[in-house]
């Protein structure tokens, strides 16, 4: 997951440097691919953060809590 978002981010940076014509294509009025791609990075960041929070709460926390209680020997 970490590798994935880093690749996605680096793709964005590389395209910004090397694919200027593509990034300059206007999509909605003055708003071009570059801006949309940039805002998508924001969206994906929020999305990944939210997805991780849910995953951690549902899957990771119960296991961690159980192991911790077992080792520390008392419920909290």
């Amino acid at each position: 997951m970490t590798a994935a978002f880093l690749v996605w981010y680096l793709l964005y940076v590389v395209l910004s440097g090397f694919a200027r014509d593509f990034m300059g294509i206007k999509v909605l009025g003055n708003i071009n691919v570059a801006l949309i791609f940039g805002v998508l990075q924001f969206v994906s960041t929020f999305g990944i953060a939210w997805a991780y929070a849910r995953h951690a709460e549902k899957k990771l926390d119960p296991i961690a809590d159980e192991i911790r209680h077992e080792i520390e020997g008392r419920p909290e």
Partner: protein
Amino acid sequence: MSSEALSTVLFLLFVAATLGITFWASRQTKTAADYYAGGRSFSGAQNGLAIGGDYMSAASFLGIAGLIALYGYDGFLYSIGFLVAWLVALLLVAELMRNSGKFTMADVLAFRMSPRPVRTAAGVSTITVSIFYLLAQMVGAGALVGLLLGIEGPAAKAWTIVAVGILMIVYVVVGGMKGTTWVQIVKAVLLMGGATLVTLLVLGKYGFNLSSLMGEAAAQSSNPTTYTGGGGRYATEAQGLAGKLDLISLGLALVLGTAGLPHILIRFYTVPTAKDARKSVLWGIGIIGTFYLLTLVLGFGAAALVGSKTIAAQDAAGNTAAPQLAQAIGQAIFGEVGGTILLAIIAAVAFATILAVVAGLTLASSSSFAHDLYAHVFKRGDVTEKEEVLVARISAFVIGAVSIGLGILAQGQNVAFLVALAFAVAASGNLPAILYSLFWKRFNTAGAVAAIYGGLVSALVLVIFSPVVSGKATSLFPDANFAWFPLSNPGLVSIPIGFLAGWIGTKLSKEYNAAKYAEIEVRSLTGVGAEKAAEH
């Protein structure tokens, strides 16, 4: 009342309020856990705000708004790196650090290694990164006051640096982590409030139509094509391939550096559990992300309503774009009084922003000196809590005084590169060591020391021999030319060197402690034996 007078009054109100908070916090600061980690009693939301307050510096607010105002898209690029970086902190670092460390980054690294060499290396790296960052902020403070209060001359700016320095020393020495955190929380609220207000006014003026705002901004800029498509400031056509590689280098340093910044890492220790550390990063991402979206509108608004010529005339780097916009939009909607008031508010917020960040940096570096270098390396752990906290306070004073002095000396220099360098060192020296420590069983002391010094030294050396220091009109030494390294940001090279050095150092040493790795794995993932919140 002039806007200068009003903004001074507002700023003094902020100072009075935060000093009050600091003295209140000092009465609650009794133990080392209180001083270093605020008693670990901050909630996820509070810490998230503090993270925002600690991270969103004047460089973020004024610098990025200015970059977007003058160059458009290239400025936006910058802010994206600053935000995406937090995913690295969220997914790989925050919770694991909270569970395996006590007060500093070095606590985690020293867990399964031979403590003294690792703590020395981590302490050196922490103090280096923090001082670079701190120096840049101090010089920025002097320049900023000059611009916003219309004060001219090096003497006035020097006094500003002294004033900022004294305040930050008081926050840290008297208030410790509790006081500093509250200052950052207050600043974050003010910054978000001020930025949101101006953003809404600007959007309102353009009928909430981002496209027309952007079009107007581009039309007012000096180069509409690069304004919307990129290449106006970074990776310009004139810079060719080196410029594009530099952009990637910068992008890497930003995205990987945040999770290695010491003043950010210590934030994770101020909450009761790892889950709260996670919550605080989630809050931080929400706040910081929203903020950077706001700066996009602020930048466009400044370009459209003030114009790049007017902005550049006031400050070539664009640092006054946001306040100039505040005045312009205030005037446009509420008349001249409105313009004065809004300008004063934004200027006061900018001063508050600097104060909160420098306090955090001073706390991080002095804590590392006292806890890592003094208590564990020099005194080999034979030191009482009281003594350690006293040393922490003294070193905060010393570091503060040194940065005041250096800030005055470095006045007028273009020190933006210091922040980029801080990120590069954090990404090359700190992050590899942290990640290897938490995730690589074979990692050992030699590897940790090699990773930290390898990353730190390679970043420093490459910057010294880059166009930042010599060879160009904007360099530190414009008349000399020893710049054989073509990139202004060393990240692309120094970050892999950091990881490589860590790997080589580990393989060359026979040290291998699988049991200790198993222990840190369990502790970091489950929270067994983690430092608990203090009872009062």
